[in-house]
């Protein structure tokens, strides 16, 4: 029997993360990274923003956005290294680095959102 591959599972994380990132990352990055710092739009009040982030649904959504986007990014970056730089021989090292980083980021996001 052929060895079972992890690739379908990793790919499902990649594709759900790709969708979620495509849908919400541009608006968030535009607001917090460009529009608020440049004063195009009025920055929300600290307490309003804190209350919003503390809502259980917002925490769940933010955890999903962070974690899935990271797995999406990890998967794609792994193949960027393979294809762009042709370093397939470092396969295992790169996979551990990419998915390990995404796991670490997920744990960090959970910790931050739990304590917010």
């Amino acid at each position, binding site marked *: 029997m052929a060895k079972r591959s992890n690739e379908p599972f990793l790919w499902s994380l990649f594709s759900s993360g790709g969708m979620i990132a*495509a849908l919400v*990352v541009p608006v968030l990055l535009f*607001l917090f*990274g460009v529009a608020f*710092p440049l004063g195009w739009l009025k920055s929300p009040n600290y307490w309003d923003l804190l209350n919003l982030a503390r809502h259980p649904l917002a925490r769940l959504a933010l955890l999903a*956005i*962070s974690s899935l986007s990271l797995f999406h990014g990890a998967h794609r970056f792994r193949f960027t290294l393979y294809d762009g*730089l042709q370093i397939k021989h470092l396969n295992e090292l790169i996979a551990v680095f990419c998915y390990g980083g995404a796991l670490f980021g997920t744990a960090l996001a959970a910790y931050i959102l739990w304590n*917010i």
Partner: protein
Amino acid sequence: MKQPPAYTLYHPKWYRKRVSTWWWTEQWRSFKFILRELSSLAVIYFVALLLWLLWSLGKGPDKYLEFQSWMKDPLVIAFNVIALIFVLYHSITWFNLAPKAMPIRMGGKRLPEWMVAAPNYVVWLVISAVVAWFILGGN
């Protein structure tokens, strides 16, 4: 059982031309492919930014103010604009992929690609508007 074939020197099927590390600079379409793949770095950067924002939000108004003044650095803004362009490129290529990944047939004919991709853009607009509405305080 057949014996494994003896070792063959210079097997014709094994000839592989060495591909340059810079193969993707030779054609615009492969360059675009690598640009799209590099959007992963912009997504990872965004998550780091988001976690920093949430962390400083949880630490109190002073830390949040510190985060905001960091964001006002022209270099950071320039970096964010570049990341935003990559992230938009990811969104657009992602949404346009749908009709290629799952062609929908109606009456034996394939629906035109834009008709399969269009709902993605509608959902994108609606979600962006809702997120912005929540953050801007519903005013």
